[in-house]
């Protein structure tokens, strides 16, 4: 937002134009990449061919190639050259090399998934300053949303409901709809009420009436509340009633000591009504399942791939809703407390995936998961010479490229809006932000939901790519891994976190395994010291070294740079208006056609 800086950019030592060098490196690394993935050609090259087949050399070739995109972003060069190198690398050379070696496409998709996750977490942690250790839960929501429906699991669920219908579908639907309406209507009616509007006895009357209503509802509808063979009505009644009764007793005790409990009673009434809404929704969903169970059993390979696009939207929505639901109770806290709670809630989602075995197949995981098939895309892929089994991967590659570009665009635009400013204001000083009219909870919820939705959509792409999801893919280490990418790349910096995701993913999937593979056969390295065994150790050492050497991250955000080197705050503005720029270390094209100003452009100004 300093584009409007009144002080004209000063430049003491102009950065040389590196168009030529950029193109040269692009051609060289592209040739190397294509060469090293062309088996026939490698056979004819003798010694060089053997060298290029060495896993560690191959990993370096891939990394160098991806560095092209980073150079195109960082260096001062002609805009057409930047566009050519960025787009050419990602849309032409990479798929071309991927034709020979699909693991390259797989790796690229993985990098982009992590880049999108890092961008999402960056909003929550980097911009809004909310430390979230359960971020991968949203990724899981997206993955399962598609995984359950696009696999044989869906038919299994249908079969289960056919075999264990429980109560009548129509009665469940009616009761569910009524409960939902009553809960929602009551909640909306109470939403605007304040404690002062009610008399003490009025508040007690309202709450007790609601509790009595609950009990009556349970007893009346008891016959309906069986999930298949398992009756849970009485247990549910006790689980709900005991804490409510204890709470009411405590409030009665507080009132006896002269405290004003109207606010608490009003809050309790709202919770009860909100619960009614949730229960109603569940019952309606259940009746729909019951009614359609017969039809579902026929879908032995899951729903039609045509629904892919609908689910793409649904996964965004579902993850955002889960983000809001998780965010609502926890966002009053901050710092360490928030971190611990999000960690716990992240684990809750994983454990749910593990234990709801009817829906998620538990720890076995769901497989095979379908993907979209787009007719014209397959035709195009065939024309370009791809084999039939590569269509799906290529499609997902292009899709994730598109998604990362979109996510980046949304990020940049939000950052340069009142919402982005509110996030940073909250991060810098919550009290001051609130006193300036920024609603805390709402603003934090937007951050949570936006970050979650990015994870949701990438979770779905992940499920489609792996054709398999299990709770193991969504454990705490994944959350921490994404956080490491954000911090390593530079908190708050969009190109930075993409680069962080790329570096960490490359290290984990290519460079370190390559190193292990290449040295496995060497007899002069004792087995205990073999890098293959010490991958985690090397990774940790690299993280520690990077954090010591560049605490602000690989590509720090402009704000952080200004803070750390504030003797020459104008220097970084020099990069403004260098025209189209490509971001990221291989993650993504930052489309030159979109008119957004680059926030975090470091363009060599910092060193």
């Amino acid at each position: 937002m300093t584009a409007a800086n009144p002080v004209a950019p000063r430049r003491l030592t102009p950065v040389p134009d590196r168009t030529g060098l950029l193109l040269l490196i692009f051609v060289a690394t592209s040739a190397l990449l294509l060469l090293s993935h062309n088996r026939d050609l490698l056979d004819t090259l003798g010694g060089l061919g053997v060298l290029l087949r060495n896993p560690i050399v191959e990993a370096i070739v891939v990394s160098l190639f991806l560095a092209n995109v980073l150079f195109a972003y960082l260096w001062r060069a002609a805009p057409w050259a930047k566009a050519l190198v960025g787009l050419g690398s990602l849309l032409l050379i990479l798929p071309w090399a991927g034709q020979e070696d699909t693991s390259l496409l797989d790796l690229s998709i993985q990098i982009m998934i992590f880049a999108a996750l890092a961008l999402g977490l960056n909003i929550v942690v980097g911009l809004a300053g909310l430390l979230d250790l359960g971020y991968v839960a949203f990724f899981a929501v997206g993955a399962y949303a598609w995984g359950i429906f696009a696999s044989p699991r869906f038919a299994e669920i249908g079969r289960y409901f056919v075999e264990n219908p429980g109560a009548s579908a129509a009665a469940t639907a009616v009761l569910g709809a009524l409960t939902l309406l009553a809960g929602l209507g009551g909640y909306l009616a109470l939403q605007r009420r304040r404690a002062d509007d009610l008399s003490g006895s009025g508040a007690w009357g309202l709450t007790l009436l609601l509790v009595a209503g609950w009990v009556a509802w349970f007893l009346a509808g008891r016959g309906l509340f069986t999930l298949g063979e398992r009756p849970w009505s009485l247990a549910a009644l006790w689980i709900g009633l005991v804490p409510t009764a204890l709470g009411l007793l405590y409030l009665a005790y507080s009132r006896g000591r002269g405290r004003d409990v109207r606010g608490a009673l009003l809050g309790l009434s709202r919770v009860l009504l909100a619960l009614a809404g949730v229960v109603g929704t569940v019952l309606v969903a259940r009746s729909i399942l019951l009614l359609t169970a017969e039809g579902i059993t026929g879908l032995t390979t899951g729903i039609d791939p045509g629904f892919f696009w609908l689910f793409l939207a649904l996964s965004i929505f579902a993850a955002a809703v889960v983000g809001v639901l998780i965010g609502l109770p926890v966002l009053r806290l901050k710092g360490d407390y928030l971190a611990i709670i999000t960690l716990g809630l992240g684990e809750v989602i994983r454990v749910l995936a593990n234990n709801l075995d009817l829906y998620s197949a538990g720890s076995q995981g769901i497989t095979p998961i379908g993907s979209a098939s787009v007719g014209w895309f397959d035709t195009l892929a065939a024309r370009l010479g791809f084999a039939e089994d590569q269509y799906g991967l290529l499609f997902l590659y292009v899709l994730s490229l598109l998604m990362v570009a979109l996510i980046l665009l949304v990020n940049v635009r939000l950052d340069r809006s009142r919402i982005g400013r509110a996030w940073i204001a909250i991060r810098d000083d919550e009290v001051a932000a609130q006193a300036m009219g920024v609603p805390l909870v709402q603003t934090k919820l937007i951050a949570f939901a936006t970050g979650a939705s990015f994870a949701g959509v990438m979770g779905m792409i992940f499920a489609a790519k792996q054709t398999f999801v299990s709770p193991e893919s969504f454990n705490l280490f994944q959350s921490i891994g994404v956080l490491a990418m954000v911090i390593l790349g530079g908190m708050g910096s969009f190109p930075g976190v993409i680069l962080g995701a790329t570096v960490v993913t490359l290290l984990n999937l290519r460079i370190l395994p390559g190193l292990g593979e290449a040295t496995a056969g060497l007899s002069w390295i004792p087995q205990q010291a073999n890098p293959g065994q010490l991958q985690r150790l090397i990774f940790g050492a690299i993280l520690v070294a990077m954090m010591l050497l560049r605490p602000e991250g690989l590509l720090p955000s402009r704000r952080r740079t200004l803070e750390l080197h504030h003797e020459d705050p104008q220097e970084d503005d020099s990069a403004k208006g260098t025209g189209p720029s490509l971001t990221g270390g291989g993650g993504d094209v930052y489309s030159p056609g979109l008119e957004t100003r680059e926030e975090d452009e470091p363009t060599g100004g910092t060193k």
Partner: protein
Amino acid sequence: MTAPLILDVQHLTKTFGGLTAVNDVTFGVPQGGIISVIGPNGAGKTTFFNLITGIYSPDRGSVRLAGRELIGLRPDQVAAAGIARTFQNIRLFSSMTAEENIMVGRHSRLKASFLDAVLHTRGFHASEREARETARIMLDFVGLGKWRGELATNLPYGDQRKLEIARALATTPKLILLDEPAAGMNPRETEDLKALIRSIRDDLGVTVVLIEHDMRLVMTLSENITVLDYGTKISEGLPHQVRNDPAVMEAYLGRGAAAGDYGKEAR
């Protein structure tokens, strides 16, 4: 007081555990006035501001802004209702530029939604333009035009105080609460500040309430002074009346000189 009250505080009380920080304070601010709240350290002045702006909720009492009850509103709602404030210990957004700090102050007045921002609708551009224009006007108003693109933390101390005032004014308040605006300023800066505060009232039509320890500033600037001690209002009136009030002298000199170790100011 003949002018209609813009801020009407009745019987405001707040206790923290056993300590009564603000005790049954009734306080009125006439429209267009410059009013000071003074008192020894720990008298509950800042707590009083925090109660008015919704940061704390009082045990008893009411706060009405132009007739509208503010108790029960969140701080951001109070800001939207028309009360802006600055802080005793400067609370700028340190990683933002001066301009961005003021644009945050504009938050509640901008209409652009999440979707507007993502889609870059016409409404979004209009609201961004408006925010930037307000920022420019406010920076010029407090005399910080040259610092527009500079990070807030890099500003000289006195200018940071002025930037806080500009940020508060960007919320287009009816009333601005200044918490020790002259703290740490040299006499020349204090003179500038005095002119600025007058101009806030005269040129922008914003009513001013300030907490201040600089007695010369308070006595020359205020139209009315309220004195708090141990959370209780001990005196109120015109500057010369307050200056000669024995209760005030006792609060400042008598007990202050003898004990010398009042608790830290409640924040």
